[in-house]
């Protein structure tokens, strides 16, 4: 078959079973857009408000579906607008393919209009990037991009395609969907060592990271926890790997985590760290982190071993296989004494129950949690509201939690929620702050245009809460550049953007509008007015430990 470069792009996307892409047109992708126009029945293109939004949407789509998210942008400013989205996906190991157009080869290297070296630009924020000079290499390069994005430790890949390459003709043959590379098999000796360590342990804890979600190993974690009678603690990225209702679930540990979770970890004699990279927000001072415990570290990426923590046993390879092996080979344990101790820690340091008299973040999040259907996808932006959601929302299944854990990208949420709503076609929640929302609220337009059922809950404290909190505790209360002095009326704004807007000032309001929001069509914005003084506590200071947790 003789096809143009742009036709090849469409055919390879179809070959990879891509049905939806997010993007924004421009001069040097017009040839591709012309093919998208002709193939509207085969590939749905969702036009966002800007390319950053499109990149977060592709990321969100990938997080909930487990498929590779695809984003397309033009050269120059289109490509630079993708950078934050790529970096966000890279930090959280999310498989994504970004396609950019570039100036025709004859203009390449001449500083021509909207020219940028997208490949160099994205070296630091992608797993790999390609510049396609030759149309004959286009199809296989794209297949490679999909393979790299989803193989091993996933991540974003960029393909930069000059405009003339998009128009050139070349023979094309369809291939099967690109499979990912076989994961490395975890070594038996190391796994047996781990089995031995687990059998000996009296106070085991499983520490779950995003790798558990990526490898679809939630079931294996549950089984292992039950077999070796271990409690399960999470990094921010690992949340949702186990139902919060499970008796062994302890929630997120670390800087803004649950105090009981961090304290239980500190008392453990064995930490089984699975698909987690010991980022400093989770561990605090690494010298003081789980001082009493031996560590088994399982990860698909060998470079995570010894990067921050030197584990006693390192298992590199397929997480699911390794967890299955451990579960099948460890003895059935009953660590009664450990359980009693943990229950005591939970009683002393656990979260106090919500009190519906107040209209506080905890009460708001827990109430919404109860009203929405189980398994609803939940996105956040970055700040206090993110930590509150991580702490107070009870996730019931994997791939329902979308947050920028590694990169902490304010402005991630709205795009991510759009991606999730497109993938699931279900109501999707976004918890955001008034600061973060202002970074990406242009994407409400996208949600409106496409009638996407995103329910945006703004925890509106009138300021950049997280920054205010840090200035209060660590900069002598010099709170500066945090007051948003909000004159913005988010309810009217919803209306202006073609969405539905509500305001809630107390629990009764919230329950009423939340129920309405579930019936409404298209996006809904609920502006929840909360106190500007709320903090997200307890907080472990940067490089701190369980010994210096700040509680008030």
């Amino acid at each position: 078959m003789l096809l143009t470069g742009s036709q090849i792009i469409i055919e390879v996307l179809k070959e990879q079973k891509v049905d939806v892409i997010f993007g924004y047109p421009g001069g040097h992708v017009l040839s591709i857009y012309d093919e998208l126009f002709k193939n509207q029945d085969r590939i749905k293109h969702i036009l966002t408000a800007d390319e950053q939004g499109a990149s977060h949407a592709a990321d969100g789509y990938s997080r909930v579906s487990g498929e590779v998210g695809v984003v397309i942008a033009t050269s120059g400013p289109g490509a630079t607008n993708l950078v934050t989205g790529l970096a966000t996906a890279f930090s959280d190991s999310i498989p994504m393919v970004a396609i950019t157009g570039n100036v025709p080869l004859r203009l390449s290297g001449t500083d021509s209009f909207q020219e940028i070296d997208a490949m160099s630009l994205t070296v630091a924020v992608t797993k790999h990037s390609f510049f396609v000079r030759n149309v004959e290499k286009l199809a296989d390069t794209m297949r490679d991009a999909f393979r790299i994005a989803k193989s091993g430790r996933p991540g974003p890949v960029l393909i930069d395609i000059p405009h003339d390459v998009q128009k050139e003709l070349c023979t094309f043959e369809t291939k099967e969907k690109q499979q990912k590379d076989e994961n490395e098999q975890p070594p038996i000796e190391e796994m047996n060592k781990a089995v031995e360590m687990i059998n000996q342990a009296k106070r085991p804890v499983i520490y779950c990271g995003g790798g558990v979600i990526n490898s679809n190993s939630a079931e294996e974690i549950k089984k292992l926890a039950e077999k070796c009678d271990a409690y399960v603690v999470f990094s921010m990225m690992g949340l949702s790997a186990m139902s919060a209702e499970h008796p062994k679930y302890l929630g997120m540990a670390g800087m803004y985590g649950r105090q009981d979770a961090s304290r239980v970890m500190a008392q453990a004699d064995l930490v089984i760290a699975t698909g987690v990279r010991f980022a400093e927000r989770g561990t605090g001072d690494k010298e003081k982190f789980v001082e009493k415990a031996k560590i088994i570290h399982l990860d698909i990426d060998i470079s995570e071993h010894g990067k921050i923590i030197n584990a006693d046993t390192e298992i590199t390879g397929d997480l699911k296989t390794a967890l299955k092996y451990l579960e099948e080979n460890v003895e059935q344990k009953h660590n009664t004494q450990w359980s009693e101790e943990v229950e005591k820690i939970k009683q002393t340091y656990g979260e106090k129950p919500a009190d519906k008299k107040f209209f506080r973040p905890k009460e708001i999040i827990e109430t919404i949690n109860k009203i929405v259907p189980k398994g609803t996808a939940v996105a956040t932006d970055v700040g206090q509201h993110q930590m509150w959601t991580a702490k107070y929302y009870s996730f019931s299944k994997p791939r329902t939690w979308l947050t920028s854990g590694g990169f902490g990208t304010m402005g991630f949420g709205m795009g991510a929620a759009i991606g999730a709503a497109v993938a699931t076609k279900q109501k999707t929640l976004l918890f955001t702050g008034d600061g973060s929302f202002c970074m990406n609220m242009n994407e409400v337009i996208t949600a409106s245009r496409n009638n996407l059922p995103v329910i945006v809950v703004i925890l509106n404290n009138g300021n950049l809460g997280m920054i205010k909190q840090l200035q209060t505790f660590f900069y002598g209360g010099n709170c500066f550049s945090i007051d948003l002095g909000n004159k913005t009326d988010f309810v009217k704004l919803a209306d202006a953007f073609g969405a539905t807007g509500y305001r809630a000032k107390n629990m009764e309001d919230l329950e009423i509008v939340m129920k309405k929001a579930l019936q409404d069509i298209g996006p809904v914005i609920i502006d929840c007015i909360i106190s500007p003084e709320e903090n997200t506590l307890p907080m472990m200071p940067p490089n701190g430990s369980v010994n210096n947790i700040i509680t008030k």
Partner: protein
Amino acid sequence: METIKIVIMANNTEDLLIRVTSLFHKRGFRIKTFVFDETTSCDLVKMYITVVCDYSKGEQMLRQLTKLYDIKEADLIAC
């Protein structure tokens, strides 16, 4: 701290150098010497890079390098 030599065999792609040097920068290394050479196969090139660091940091760097798509082989030699 010691001088460590890293020897790399890689596909001769146009983006190879920028990827390798940017990775050294990202991980906090300062390159002391750098040799980039052809091999008998025109598709492959060899690089000899020396840095001053703890051996364990060098090992970590090696693992990061081997993740690069175009790197076929990388070894660490303490000099």
